[in-house]
Each structure stands twice: as C-alpha cells, then as structure tokens.
C-alpha cells in the first residue's frame, strides 16, 4: 500500500532479478508475467540462457537417475548386511559380534553418504531424511544417563518398543531429540566417545541381559532402528528404480531437462556450501566441540565427509563406483555444462577435485583435528576444506544462474 508509482518502477529491477530463478523450478513455483503490471512488458531474465543441446541434458539426467538408484540400492544392501550383523550381536553378544556389527555400520555408511548429493530439493530422500541421518543427536534422549532414562530405560512411559513408536518420537521434541537413523544406531553400537585416540567403547555386555532387562531393551531398540532404516531406504530406492510408470524417476525424467538439471544443481550446491562447508565443518571448526562432528561416536567423520564430496564429484563427472569398482560411467554435470560454458565446466571439475583432496587431507580422528591452533595440520586442512567447498558452492550457483536458478541461499536440512 505504501508503494507509490515511483516505488513500483524502482521495484521492477528486483522483480526482473527475482523471477527467472523462481520460474526455473516449475515444480515449485508457477511461472508468470504479472497481469497488473502497467509499466510495460516483463523484463527478460538478466542472464542469457545458453542453448544446450537437449540430448546432452537428457543424457545427464539419465546418468543422474542411474547413480541415484545405484547409491540407494547399495545403501539398502549395506543396511541389510548391518541387520544381519546386529541380529548376531543381539542374539549372542560378544566382543566379536559387536566388532562385526560396527564394521557393518561403517561399510553401510559409504553408499549412504555418497547419496546425500540427492537431497535438498523435495526429492524422495527429503521425505524421510530426518529419520535417516539427522545429527547431532541427544544421546540421553535415546539411552539413559545420569539425568534421564532415555527411551531405552523408560519402561514406564514406553512399555513396548516398536518402529512406529520410534518414528513418532523422532524429532517430535526438537531437532536433536532424534530416535531413529544411522547416528542413533551408531550411538547404540559405540556409546559415547570419551577417548582422545579412538571411538566410543560400549562393552558388548550392554546388550547381554535377561528378558525384560535394560540390556535386552537396548538390543531390541537397536534391531528396530535398523529395521526402520532399511524400510526408509527402500522407500527411496523404489522411487529411483527404473521401469516404474509412477515413481519419482519417471517424474524426474519427464521434467523439462533444464528443470531436472536445476534440481540436481540445487542439491549439489546445498550439500557443498551450507551443509558440508557450513554445518558439518564450520560449526565444528568454530566451536572445537566433539559433539559437533558428524559421526562422533564411531570417529568415522572424515570418511563420511569424503564420501559426501565424492558423491558430488561423481555427479559432476557422471561416475559411480561400487566398492572401488566403477559401475557407472555416463554423462556428468561437467560434461553437460561443457557444451555451453567449457570454462565453467573445467573450473567446477577442478573445484570438486580440490574439495575431495582437501577433505582427504583432514587427519583422523576429526574430533582431535578440530583442536588446537589454526596452524595445526588438522585445523588448516579443515579450513582449506571449508574454503574449497564454499568455492565449489559459488561455482554451482553460477551454473544455476545459467539455468535460471539461484542456489546460493540454500541451507542444509538437518
């Protein structure tokens, strides 16, 4: 109401800037020209759209979907292996079954972290991600300590454990009151990490007890958490499976190719900058607090970070490896981009490589690498990684601009 005619004209610049990136996401925003706009025709987007060959874009979209399906299939397989190991642990707790279960968790993490590049645009994973990989978690919410019984120890409030109970409690009392997912399972397998030179040291006896005991509840909880993990991962896997007429992959394939690519770039940008660079690295770097590392119980954080970066690089190069064997080699974002802006494509390829290298140089364990002066090898490697990821996010926002989408502001979810 306070906008005068003059102010209206002044605002036109903002409208001109704002519309193109809103329009790019036809799934999220309606594209439009303002009908009441009396000040002449709508401005053209300020960024000239490069004429990319549709076939290249379609090839990229196809590879992208193939990698997504492969990564989620591997994540499901990993979770099933974990389930076998956890069953063995709970049925016969021992040092050896506990070690095997931890090993299975570590193996299961690889494909899931590689798949995180498919988050952040209301795709299939975003419907269940909060149940899968939310961190940090409030340990006391799950399992008891001095000040709380936790779900495991609260027999009175939660007489019977079930997957629906755990799902219902997850994040219902705040963003760190987490009852499901990889990090809850991690906590149950390792316990709190109180050592400087290693991970948590939960003894197998924590799972060994008579029927109705706390230990038995802990084991039951662990089994349920793994069961839920599998079913959530499967729900994403089927959405990316080929040959279904009604799943997300079909929707994705039928999008205008530029829109599909814009979603992919949005996910890559959000994971690179705000999520990895911001929440997973900057927060730990600034606070020097162990609880701010991604996998704080198992000390697997450096591996997690590397898999995330490799996942982004893989979408850029169109490649996916299973157990270090390349199983997909198709059209990556950098290939698709090379047709219109070879310089930017080369810069992005270089940048993703640099991020991977910088993260690879962070010495494990991460909770020790964040400590000390900024000049220590650990902190300087983390600082380099943050800068590399921010640079990568900046390049991705330039890619997005080519496709009429702005991603710089996108923040990580959990």
């Amino acid at each position, binding site marked *: *109401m*306070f*906008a*005068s005619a*003059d*102010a*209206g004209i002044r*605002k036109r610049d*903002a*409208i001109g*800037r*704002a*519309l193109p*990136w*809103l329009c790019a*996401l036809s799934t*999220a*925003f*309606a594209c*439009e*020209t*303002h*009908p*009441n*706009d009396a000040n002449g025709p709508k401005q053209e987007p300020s960024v000239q759209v490069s004429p990319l060959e549709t076939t290249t874009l379609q090839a990229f979209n196809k590879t992208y979907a193939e990698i997504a399906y492969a990564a989620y299939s591997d994540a499901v397989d990993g979770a099933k292996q974990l389930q076998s190991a956890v069953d063995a642990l709970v049925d016969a707790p021992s040092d050896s079954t506990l070690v095997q279960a931890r090993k299975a968790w570590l193996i299961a993490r690889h494909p899931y972290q590689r798949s995180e590049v498919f988050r*952040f645009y*209301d795709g299939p994973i*975003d419907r269940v991600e909060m149940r899968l990989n939310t961190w*940090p978690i*409030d340990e*006391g919410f799950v399992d008891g300590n001095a*000040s*709380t019984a936790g779900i495991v120890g609260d027999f009175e409030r939660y007489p019977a454990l079930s997957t629906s109970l755990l799902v219902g409690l997850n*994040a*219902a*009392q*705040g*963003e*760190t*009151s987490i009852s499901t997912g990889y990090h809850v399972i991690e906590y149950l397998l390792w316990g709190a990490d109180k050592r400087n030179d290693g991970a948590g040291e939960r003894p197998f006896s924590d799972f060994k007890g008579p029927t109705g005991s706390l230990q038995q509840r802990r084991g039951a909880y662990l089994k349920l958490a793994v069961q839920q993990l599998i079913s959530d991962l499967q729900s994403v896997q089927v959405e990316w499976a080929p040959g279904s007429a009604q799943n997300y992959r079909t929707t994705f394939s039928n999008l205008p190719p530029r829109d599909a690519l814009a979603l992919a770039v949005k996910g890559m940008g959000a994971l690179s900058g*705000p999520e990895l660079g*911001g*929440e997973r690295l*900057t*927060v730990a770097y*600034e*606070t020097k*607090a162990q*609880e*701010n590392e991604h996998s704080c119980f198992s000390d697997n954080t450096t591996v997690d970070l590397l898999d995330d970066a490799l996942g982004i690089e893989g979408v850029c190069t169109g490649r996916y490896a299973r157990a270090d064997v390349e199983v997909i080699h198709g059209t990556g974002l950098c290939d698709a981009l090379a047709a219109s802006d070879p310089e930017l494509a080369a810069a992005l390829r270089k940048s993703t490589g640099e991020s991977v290298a910088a993260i690879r140089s962070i010495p494990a364990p991460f909770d020790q690498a964040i400590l000390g002066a900024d000049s220590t090898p650990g902190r300087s490697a983390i600082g380099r990684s943050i800068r590399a990821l*921010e640079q990568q996010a900046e390049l991705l926002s330039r890619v997005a601009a080519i496709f009429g*989408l*702005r*991603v*710089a*502001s*996108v*923040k*990580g*979810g959990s």
Partner: protein
Amino acid sequence: MTLPWACARAPKLFMALGAIALTAACEHGVRMPHEAASAGPATVTDATRDAFGQPMPGLSQARRHQFFVGNSFFNLNWVSAPASVSDRDGLGPLFNARSCSACHFKDGRGRPPEAGENMLSMLVRISVPGAGPNGAPLPDPIYGDQLQSSAVPGLTAEAEVTIEYRQVRGTYPDGEVYELLSPSYRIARTAFGPASTEILLSPRVAPALVGLGLLEAVPDATLELLASETEHEGITGRINRVPDLTSGALSIGRFGWKAEQPSVLQQTAGAFNGDMGLTSRLFTSENHTARQSGPEHFESGGAPEVSDEILDQVTTYVGSLGVPARRDVALPQVSRGEDLFLELGCAGCHVPTLPVASKESLPEIGIEEIHPYTDLLLHDMGEGLSDHRQVYGASGGEWRTPPLWGLGLVSKVNGHTRLLHDGRARSTSEAILWHDGEAKLAREAFIHLQQVERTAVLAFLASL
C-alpha cells in the same frame, strides 16, 4: 470499498519516505506489492520443508559462519548441570523446552497439543490483576510470569494447563457453514501450592522466525508515524513501549504476541530464560521465585549459563533468517485475492510494505523495503481473543499484528495450519473469522464476499 483506508493512513509515511504526497498517492492508486520477493535481496528461494531455516542470501562470510554456529546451538538440547558438555548445561531446573528448536521446529511455528499430547511448542504466560512499573504484568506470587511445564529429574514441573474447546458454529451470509473452536484453559497439578485465585492465563504458540532481523531494522520513526495516523475505519495502531534491558530505557516493542520485546537479542535471551531456565547477561536470575522451594538446590550451569558468545551467535542466527519467496504470485486468483486484501481493509494493520534501514545491523544486505504484512503495532482484536491481562502498554484485547510472510509454508514446514496466538484457528479462514475489535469491519467485509472471492483471498494468503 475502492477508496482504501490506506490513503487516510499512509500520507505521513509517504512523505517520510520522500516518495510522493497524499493526493498523488491516491490518484495513482495505492497498490499491493504483487511481488514474489517479499524481502528483496534477503528473499530465499527454498520452498521445501527447510524454507524457514535459510540464511539471507549475501550475508558476509563472518556472519554466515556465525549463523551456522548459532543454528547448532538453536537446535541442540541443553542439559541439566553439571554435565561434561559445559557449553550447554544449566537447563532448568524449571523449563518448557530443552532447545529453541523444540518450539520453533525448523524455525517454524508451534501449535497447541493434540488430545493426549503434552504442551510442547506452546507455553502459558501468567499474571495477576494489576500492573507493575511501566505497566509490566504482575507475576503470580508463587509461579512467577510463566508456567514451566517441565523440570529436571528430581523436581516436579510447576503445573499443567489443560485446554477444552467448545465448538461454535456459524454461517457466512451466502449460507456456507463454518465451525470455530473456542478454547478455555485450566491449571491443574500445581506443584508448589495453589496459584492465585485471580490468576490470568495467556497461552501462546511459538511463532515462525523468518525475517526478524529485517523487522528489527524498520525505523522507529516509521512505527511512530503509523501509530500517529488518525483513526480510519476503526483502526488505530499503538506502540507498546517496553523496557530495553540493554539501554535501560523504554523502547518500541516489536516482537512477541504483545510486542513486549524491543529487539531480537532481548527476545532470544528472554526465551532462553523463561522457556529453558537459562541465565544470560540480560537475564541473570533463574526463572523460579523465592516462594518456590526446591529449585534453588539445583546446580547452576555457570554465571551466566548462556555465554555472551553463544547468546550473540544464536541472536545472529535468528536475526539472519531469510524470508521465503512467495509462490504463485501472478495466478489470476492469487492476484485477485491480493487486491481484495487491500479492498477489505486487511492491509490497514497487515501493512504490506515497510521501509528498512539495515545499514547498521545488516550492512551487506542492500535492502530498502520489505513486504511483511504487519505494522508491528498493537490493535484491539476484541473480547473473543482477549486474555484480559496487561503487558506494558498492551491491554488484554490488544495484540501485535503478526507478520504474514511465510504463512503459506507453515503447513509444509510444520505440518499443521494452526493460527492465532494460541493456535485455536485451524485454518486461515478461521483465523479471519476470529478477528474482531478494530478488525471487525474487515472481517465483516470478508464474510460478505462471494465464496469465490473468499477463496481468492485465502489463495493470496497461501501464496505468502
């Protein structure tokens, strides 16, 4: 209906903005923004479940890093002292929530409990009749100014508040039937003896936090001007002057349902204290009273419990949350609804456009005006919504106009559509139907619209 109230209320602001004089404004026709970017360059494009949790684009690197660190403390559960995590111990001993995100989940909006649920993203302010210095509410002698619904182990929570809803049916002039929920609140299970028999209850849900740093940057002079406009079609906004703990003087209240907090900093520190039982440099005492026996035996998490650094980080976080872009701005129905919003007089309080002077607080964000749909002023909303208690300058029936930006994404982010200060409205139309007092004319105008026009207004509101 075509000559909007705005021409009567806008001129002083127009002149202050150096725009144009009254006559020109009305000749040109005062317009609604019809714009997707509700906060100019501070608008974010995310329309997913994370839409409320994004930093403003273009933050400096230093502020962005602060934002992420602040976010982590916003999300984290605080624990009772002593604890190995000394950064974040000191919870309670009396509290409503363990973390900011428990109520402001995903930086979004709280709701009243469903049947069988505990009150989680909602709390109850309390007082007794009368007023303290500057009109401050008088605390209950035992329970203070807020009921804490939780306590650390070894201590019992102060009380429970139960809600009973009475169904109120009505019909629009065109025959469409509606049903409202009229709540009544009762205290139960008081743990420290009986509360005052005259106790006044003010239940409040947690509001969404987008754009607070921008609302803070609206010049005082703008609000003074808006408040000085003469009454038009029953609307007169008032400023709530409240104590500013940083300056020690009275300042214009901007935040909270009663505009009882002058700054994002004080709002944040107040929530740490009242809602989580955490002291900070602004609130150095715990939230229990001398008449409560028990809480004083619990160990403190430090003096203060929330370090200056963490308080500033969380304040930066809250003050730097961007505003989601509108969707469907130019759908004919939405556009029609936007025009109707102005014609009905809704924009008399839900002012679409305000100037911002963000040079000091957010220098890297070059922004001159925002579209928050609020005037940040108090308006009498009638008996039905009144909580019958004074909060500084605000009477029981007066409430601060809540901003409407982000409204349409609440269902996406928080999975519900509960509105108004106590979440009694189950939809936007119910919220409109509760409007009374100064908003009576606008509500009457709304209900007399044809159904297709009402739907257009709701479509506009959903696009915000």
